[in-house]
């Protein structure tokens, strides 16, 4: 009997060793949130660091960029029914990282206010899944029963030892089954990304819902100028109600590209000032009708591109985009992949919005960007580093010098192209014009 117990012990050891990596895989925690914010005259990147414990501190980094005026901003963490926590952050004249710490006292849907901008974020609750409970509970029960069986065995009652031994096998079976099945159990809908976050669904994230399709209706975009600010009103295409469920996608709620009549590009990240209302300042604008395009992702999935135009009163001429790079192009006929490589000379580029580079494509332009049929946003990616789950932030200035893009221009014609990278905390915008030939042969697709 002692020998059998020893064998079971060995088996149990083997099972535990097998189950461990499965559990490690099942436990996933949220990461840092990076959000671009065009707040007044400043272009900021706000990084809300992973919340390690609740109640506890939330570390917030505010990254300023070149040309950002020095001053003071106030960070405030707010949640319904919770005391709000504020911190002042002094932004220096030198662009870079500035830190502040606010406190949260409970999991749930929170809001980080930076002056008049508000960023909704979720403080997750650490809740073990039912299958984790089954796995741990099963192994603990098996361990206790093993001890009981051993006690019976050494005290000379081998027949009695059979009972706890059988129980131990059953408990271990439960644990192993739960551990083995865990990877195949579909993940539950996440509050904040698929479901609207509430205190209840954050505290009980493993409750299943009857919803199968999480996608939401398209969004209507109505822009207007309010003084120097471009104000965007977002409403639901089915109900007309304000859209207040935007996800952080490629490190911003809205990627807003504004092209002036003379072809000057701005890439802004409007701040949320009210449900369904976002705004961004147009500094020193040009007179005339500007083409605008907003890239958004709603909770529940899918990215949308919303195009519109807005009349701006301003100066007759403005300083054009003046970024410098050696731009090498290999342009193929419409429909085939073309490559555009911007060579910046030195390996000191910083990730901007999680990417090595961005290329905005507008065209073919016949009578201006407003009526151009194609509007694209192409990325040059930073290859993922194994073992680094969090994206590198802007403090890592070690990328480049070449920034390649591949894009299949859908139509022949003349395109306006802008390549954007970050260097020395300054966004460099390199304008270019690309002529795309028609297909050599009519290709049936």
């Amino acid at each position: 009997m002692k020998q059998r117990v020893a064998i079971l012990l060995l088996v149990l050891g083997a099972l535990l060793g097998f189950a461990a990596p499965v559990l490690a895989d099942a436990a996933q925690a949220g990461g840092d949130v990076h959000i671009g914010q065009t707040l007044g005259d400043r272009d900021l990147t706000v990084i809300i660091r992973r919340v390690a414990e609740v109640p506890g501190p939330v570390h917030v980094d505010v990254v300023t960029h070149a040309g950002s005026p020095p001053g003071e901003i106030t960070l405030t963490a707010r949640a319904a029914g919770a005391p709000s926590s504020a911190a002042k952050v002094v932004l220096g004249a030198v662009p870079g990282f500035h830190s502040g710490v606010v406190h949260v006292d409970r999991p749930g849907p929170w809001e980080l206010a930076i002056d008049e901008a508000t960023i909704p974020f979720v403080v997750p609750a650490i809740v073990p899944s039912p299958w984790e409970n089954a796995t741990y509970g099963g192994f603990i029960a098996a361990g206790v029963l093993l001890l009981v069986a051993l006690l019976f065995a050494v005290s000379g009652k081998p027949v009695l030892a059979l009972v706890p031994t059988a129980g131990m096998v059953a408990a271990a079976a439960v644990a192993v089954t739960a551990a083995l099945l865990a990877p195949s159990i579909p993940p539950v809908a996440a509050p904040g990304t698929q479901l609207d976050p509430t205190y209840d669904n954050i505290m009980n994230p493993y409750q299943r819902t009857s919803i199968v399709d999480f996608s939401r209706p398209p969004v209507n975009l109505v822009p207007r100028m309010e003084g120097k600010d471009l104000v965007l009103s977002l409403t639901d295409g089915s109900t007309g109600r304000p859209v207040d469920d935007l996800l952080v996608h490629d490190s911003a709620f809205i990627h807003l590209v504004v092209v002036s009549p003379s072809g000057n590009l701005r890439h802004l990240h409007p701040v949320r000032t009210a449900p369904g209302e976002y705004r961004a300042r147009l500094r020193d604008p040009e007179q005339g009708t500007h083409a605008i395009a907003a890239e958004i992702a709603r909770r529940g999935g899918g990215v949308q591109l919303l195009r519109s135009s807005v009349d701006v009163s301003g100066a007759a001429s403005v300083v054009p985009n003046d970024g410098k790079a050696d731009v090498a192009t290999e342009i193929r006929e419409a429909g085939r992949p073309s490559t555009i490589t911007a060579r910046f000379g030195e390996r000191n580029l910083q990730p901007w919005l999680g990417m090595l580079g961005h290329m905005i494509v507008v065209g073919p332009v016949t009578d201006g960007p407003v009526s151009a049929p194609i509007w694209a946003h192409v990325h040059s990616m930073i290859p993922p580093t194994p073992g680094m789950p969090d994206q590198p932030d802007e403090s890592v200035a070690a990328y480049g010098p070449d920034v390649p893009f591949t894009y299949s221009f859908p139509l022949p014609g003349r395109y306006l192209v802008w390549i954007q990278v970050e260097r020395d905390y300054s966004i460099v915008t390199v304008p270019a014009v690309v002529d795309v030939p028609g297909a050599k042969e009519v290709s049936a697709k």
Partner: protein
Amino acid sequence: MAPQRRGTAASRGKRATPVLLTPASTKSGGNSFDLRITDRFGNPAQGSEVVVEPAMPQMGHALAPITAAALEPGHYQVGADLFMAGQWEITVSFDTERVVIPLLLT
């Protein structure tokens, strides 16, 4: 692990051109593809330039096209750095044909 063989056929009108793509690896990173292209009669495809266009639709990301080296008629070899794990789409284009082959990398 033995390399997986993936074949697909492009059909356009009455023509059907089988392309057989065999990746050297099913892991992300440096890779190379062995390509066998035959015409509708089963003979090795002749002469035309073969270009491989890798893309990752889920990431919204395409890589620069790569021209494959011809080893013998209908037999080509091409190297590609597929730096991310996930579902890739490898478009093989030659003449006016474009054949899209899905490739899952772990």
